[in-house]
């Protein structure tokens, strides 16, 4: 499965290009609107073309990501997919309680994390050693919070709560407790 860092890099490039383009466009507009010349009515064809472009863009974004970001479809269909490993984790009093001291996963295995909160709403996120995020989900009390993930290379990951649960929850961090190992 493609690493989430690759997706983030793609997003960074795409949004940066867009941001630069729209800033330059507004700069151009600001300069030209004050220049001497005759005001001209914008054609309705241009307007409707712009509307069509927005519709295509809005719809295609999700179609493209659904077909290129593998965890999107895996997430929607996770109940039909058999996990290679299942980890049941509970959270209470701002503490994660793991089934074992370390959670060991084989490369290319599909791991299911089932997280239950016994009091507040928390978050459950996995982070690389450079603090970048692999994935996250919300942990809502009274409900099953499950996520299926496939790790494609060996590594060590930290669990951190990604949702605010009061001042006591700011440092809910279990460092390097997930190990993904080569088969």
């Amino acid at each position: 499965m493609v690493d989430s860092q690759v997706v983030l890099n793609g997003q960074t490039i795409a949004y940066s290009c867009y941001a630069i383009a729209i800033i330059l466009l507004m700069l151009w507009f600001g300069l030209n609107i004050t220049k001497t010349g005759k005001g001209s009515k914008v054609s309705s064809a241009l307007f409707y073309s712009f509307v069509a472009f927005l519709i295509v863009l809005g719809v295609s974004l999700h179609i493209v990501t659904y077909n290129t970001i593998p965890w999107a479809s895996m997430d929607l269909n996770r109940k039909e997919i058999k996990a290679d490993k299942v980890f049941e984790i509970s959270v209470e009093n701002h503490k994660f309680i793991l089934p074992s001291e370390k959670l060991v996963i084989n490369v290319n295995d599909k791991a299911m994390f089932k997280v239950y909160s016994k009091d507040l709403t928390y978050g459950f996120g996995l982070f690389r050693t450079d603090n970048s995020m692999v994935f996250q989900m919300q942990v809502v009390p009274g409900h099953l919070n499950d996520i299926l993930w496939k790790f494609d290379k060996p590594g060590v990951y930290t669990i951190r709560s990604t949702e605010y649960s009061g001042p006591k929850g700011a440092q809910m961090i279990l460092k390097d407790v997930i190990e993904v190992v080569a088969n």
Partner: protein
Amino acid sequence: MLLKWLPISSLNIKTEDMNFKDTFMNGEQGLFKPATLTPMQKLVLRFVVIGLIYYGFAVIEGMIMRIYQIQPIEAIPDFQYFAILTAHPLVGIFGSTYSIVFGAFLFLVPFLMKKPLWSYKLGNWTCILIGTGTLTFWLAGFFTHYAPLYTLYWPLPADFSQFNPLGGTFFVLGIAIVMLGTVFFVINIFKTIVYTPEGWEKQPSKKLFLSAMGLSGMTNLFRKKENQKEHLVSLPVAAIARGTVDTMLNAGIILFTGVLILVYLIAHQVGFDLKNSAVDALLYKNWFWWGLDLIADGLVLIFVAGTWYLLAMLITGKDLFMQNIARAALLLELVVSWTVWSHHLMSDQAQPGILKVVSGEMVTAFELITQGLAFFITLATLWSARPLKMTNPLKFLLGGLLGFALAVPAGIMQADLGLNRILHNTQWIIGPHVHVAILVGLTMTLYSAIYILFPIVTNGAKLYSQKLANFHFWAHLIGGIGMGAFMGMAGLKGMLRRTIYLNGEFNLYMILAGICGSLLLLAFLAFFYNIVMSVGLKGVIGIFTPSKLNEKELLPAEEK
């Protein structure tokens, strides 16, 4: 002597005929005379002053948090930090934005409809309630550190192992007072649109209401040009009415939620501990986000689109480009704003997948279309009137348009099943999306409105310094976009929002965001100073004294 220490001295700004003390006391050239103001002019100016003071609160809180993200401040313990984090968006939205927007609209609706406000007294109460309500919840947070965040995820607001229930009670009461003021605003706006003033011919209330809701705009789309019906209310009034519907629904949701939390808070204080599990946390989250999104995706986008249209027409003196489409788009946006809430729950695994896809992804994508339409229509209207002079209202309007052009696509990206998994609750959400939308998009639009209304509501007072206004524009624009960009970069590297980093993990981005935040602070100080020097200290005080003129008159007789 004092002038030497003020930033304007370096900009070589000095009035010719008056010394600093005279200008500070009486305003630029003594042109602002509070005694000439009508009660309605004073009312709108009071709203603006209160809004700017609370904006100052939000900016200072923001700067404290910017510093904290670089290096936690020892004098501020973490629970105080989270109390600031809780108060910051609420003071910014309710104390500042609501004050400025409500004040402007309570003036503009009667101004555009050429009839008096339905109730001046109710307008005054709105101002008082929003001002005191904001102060109440801010003080409750400051002294008791009640900090469940604006999200209030159940059952955090009723977690008495972390929060003081008495503090929570005052906090919720403060919010409820603001909501009461909001309900008064809603009543006043709709009554003003449909009522018949004394001595007038009977007004067609129902038709006025339907026109304000955008029905005439929608039906005109399906009529031949010669059969199209005339609109009974102008487009900006229709936009205000449409946004006011969301404001009303939002107030209802927040009031209901407040009562629910109050029941738990008061029960605990009288010795009964109610079971938190009696309220389903996910259902509550859906309910609350449905209401909260009426501010973010309904009220803000609709009010902003309406304000853009009004500003474009006032700046150019021309009709709006594609007016019927604009009216129809506002009606569409109203429906969209009621059905987009699920994009906030895309990381909630118990949330049904169908809601994530339909509401979270597809309906949310419509915002790209509705806001894109408003963006295009405003630019096309301006373009049709070129050449235009680059006035303060025009440059701030362009800044506001740019802000939403940057922030809306950032929001659409995060409202995606794939991307949300790695963006939710990171600094990406709060930086390039929320802060760029609010600080650059919304606030610069509001500044544009303030600059254009300033001579109208002050009976021709003159701005103290154009150089300061220019500095205000560039510092705010660069500071706002820069801060959002660096927060976004940190978010893409995994930095979370709503937490504290103790070891400087993201310091490069946070220092750069802090520098940009300082620019925002300087921009606000320059603007505030410019306004105070324009109207003078006596003028500011005069705004809060009663007017002897008729409450029904918007402007003094000679100004009309």
